[in-house]
């Protein structure tokens, strides 16, 4: 067998950051529900626990700062959906890209962005990732492969397809993770992007975070096809529904999908069945659903509690050890909040910078 010389990849992308955790079997090109979960080692469980808890505590803190008037405008919290980004991130390697809509704080923390910089952006301070000029919905870190943070519902789907287009153009083996919600899934440009992604076999994983509500509209009131994993069917894009509250299931599906895209087979759709505990934004009292519904998800399906229970059950961590982790995270999030409260606002000269390059 003749092995063709491999085109040089971007130097940094040479080795995967984490080993692929699940067998990357090529799935049938149809929607399927899969119960497959990755078996997690103690280290993996603890790692997932920390990362999800970091997002949860960050968001709680952000909610608090919003209530204090330190964060303005719209602020969309990710509480309840933490397993999605943490599980997906495990499949990525350096050079891969992540892009999402405006419920983006979790994605940023998952890519390794500094909570201080994210929180300072929420408070509109000069130490924020966008120097205070983007706010909650518009943050970027090219260093961490995070391409925003987009405020127009669905726009990130075409943009994320463009990131994948660039990967294909450069033949660098990188994959674009393009996240959007069940609401965005009804936008026209999503399907324009699906078509091009499959037509050109672009390395993109479309992750539909179905948290059951597009703002205040329940999925079944807005969507003729509520199984979003089937939304790529007419483009021949394979899709699967994933228990987005179980980080192990997300990790396994993420590894499969990313490997599929990376190997040149084209796009892949993952519908993450998830739930947000808070309102659409801070100003949403969430009257469109019952308290019982929220409570049931919290008590029976909470992504962090699931990991916590397994850690305790398997005696991989004690209550005290988990408390210590929580305390350490709380300290870091308090420090981020302190930084974001004390950091000065942008210099007034920044008003006119970064309009053009």
């Amino acid at each position, binding site marked *: 067998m003749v092995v063709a010389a491999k085109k040089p990849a971007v130097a940094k992308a040479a080795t995967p950051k984490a080993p692929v955790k699940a067998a990357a079997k090529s799935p049938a090109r149809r929607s399927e529900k899969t119960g497959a979960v990755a078996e997690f080692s103690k280290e993996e469980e603890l790692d997932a626990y920390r990362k999800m808890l970091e997002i949860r505590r960050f968001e709680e803190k952000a909610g608090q700062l919003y209530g204090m008037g330190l964060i303005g405008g719209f602020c969309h919290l990710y509480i309840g959906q933490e397993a999605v980004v943490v599980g997906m991130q495990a499949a990525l390697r350096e050079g891969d*890209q992540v*892009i999402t809509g405006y419920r983006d704080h979790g994605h940023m923390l998952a890519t390794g962005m500094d909570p201080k910089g994210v929180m300072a952006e929420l408070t509109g301070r000069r130490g*924020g*990732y*966008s*120097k*205070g*000029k*983007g706010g909650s919905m*518009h*943050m*970027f*870190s*090219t260093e961490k492969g995070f*391409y*925003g*943070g*987009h*405020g*127009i519902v669905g*726009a990130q*789907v*075409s*943009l*994320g*397809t*463009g*990131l*994948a*287009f*660039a*990967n294909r*153009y*450069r033949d660098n083996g990188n994959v674009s993770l393009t996240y959007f919600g069940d609401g965005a899934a009804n936008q*026209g*440009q999503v399907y*324009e*992007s699906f*078509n*091009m992604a499959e*037509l050109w076999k672009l390395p993109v994983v479309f992750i539909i975070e179905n948290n059951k509500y597009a703002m205040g509209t329940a999925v079944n009131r807005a969507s003729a096809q509520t199984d979003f994993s089937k939304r790529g069917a007419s483009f021949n894009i394979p899709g699967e529904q994933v228990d987005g509250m179980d980080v192990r299931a997300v990790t396994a599906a993420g590894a499969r999908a990313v490997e599929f895209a990376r190997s040149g087979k084209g796009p892949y759709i993952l519908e993450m069945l998830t739930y947000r505990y808070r309102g659409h934004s801070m100003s949403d009292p969430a009257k469109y659903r019952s308290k019982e519904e929220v409570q049931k998800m919290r008590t029976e399906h909470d992504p962090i509690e699931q990991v916590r229970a397994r850690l305790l059950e398997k005696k991989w961590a004690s209550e005290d050890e988990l408390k210590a982790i929580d305390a350490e995270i709380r300290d870091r999030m308090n420090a981020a909040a302190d930084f974001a409260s004390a950091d000065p606002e942008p210099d007034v000269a920044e008003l006119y*910078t*970064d*309009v*053009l*390059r």
Partner: protein
Amino acid sequence: MPTEVLMPALSPTMEKGNLAKWLKKEGDQVKSGDVIAEIETDKATMEVEAIDEGTLGKILVPEGTQDVAVNTPIAVILADGEDASAAAAPSPKAAESAPPAAAAPVEPSPVTASAPATPAVINSAVANPPQPEVMPEADVPEGTEFVNQTMREALRDAMAEEMRRDGDVFVMGEEVAEYQGAYKITQGLLQEFGARRVIDTPITEHGFAGVGVGAAFTGLKPIVEFMTFNFAMQAIDQIINSAAKTLYMSGGQVHSSIVFRGPNGAAARVAAQHSQDFTAWYSHIPGLKVVAPYTAADAKGLLKSAIRDPNPIIFLENEILYGHASPVPKLDDYTVPIGKAKIARPGKDVTIVAWSIGMNYALKGAEELAKLGIEAEVIDLRTIRPLDIETVIASVKKTGRAVTVEEGWSQSGVGAEIVAQLVEKAFDYLDAPVLRVTGKDVPMPYAANLEKLALPSVQDVVDAARAVTYR
């Protein structure tokens, strides 16, 4: 009665074409649907089909004839028993025998970049395009050779040169590759650069604009062709919310070096949805640069600058100007700076500010005004954003009077902005109100007479200049 075959109009803007080849000889029998001749336009070579049955009695225009006007009789078809002499008196109904443009099968021209189609000036509005008196090429070294090129060729050369220079530059859009460009601006690029860099997209403006911007976020330099800017309205969210704003929203981290280009404004007889000038729309947006050249040299130099620019550029071309030839300096790397207007014709009595096709009215108007003893100074803005108001102000300080010319609508138009800035920055130099010549405040009508009325005219320019000079 003998039937005349007329030179067909094969596109909305075609006025002339070349009779490339006769496929039937005099005396041949022809049936309806037979291809009898090949006509070469500046976009493509097209086949002419016979509509009537009979004998090809006489060929009136021999093959190889250049610049045959639309509706010129090119041959006569005889019914049984007729002879060619019967065709001497042209029939008033002859026009009916001209094959309708839509029925003519389109045959993509096999011509490549190395052997461009023979340029033909195709629109009467610019059949004898007035040339700027002061050449833009102030920076061109003395002794530089100039070659006459159409804007179409100049744009293609600009893209080809930049694609040779930088592997990150690619072009995407509808029909840019296999079809060689809906208006043949990308002719030959697929052959030279391959399908990786010359990419046919589905008809999906919103989607491919977003794909282009996403690719630009990573440092690639896309040229996104819109078949016309009318269709870019489907994509305007990505252009403005993603391309124009992301640099700012990211605190300078993420930029989009991307060119959105294509024909803008009215073509000819394509009615309201296909005849809109978007200059003012895009000029409103911080984070964009908006360029609209008039000459082939500026088209080439500005497009090369636009492709190299690290910002999103709206590059507004004009279909009617595509076939318009003008001198282009023969230099290996000719660029024109974005953001610099030029004085296309010097004068002392009134300043006329225009750009793109508006220059056609402005320069012709200046010629008419000269006959009346009014020396107009015509400024070609070339770039609309950033607006080189300094050049306009310097001229107004000299003339004390100004007229703006654009095909777009008047309310919140580019002319309105120029007037406002003159009032703010040069009020004391003005000796008369600044007047705007614009398109009429209506959707573009289809009927030829109404369309003509809806567009600005040379007379409008003359009238406005006379009004502000009180002459």
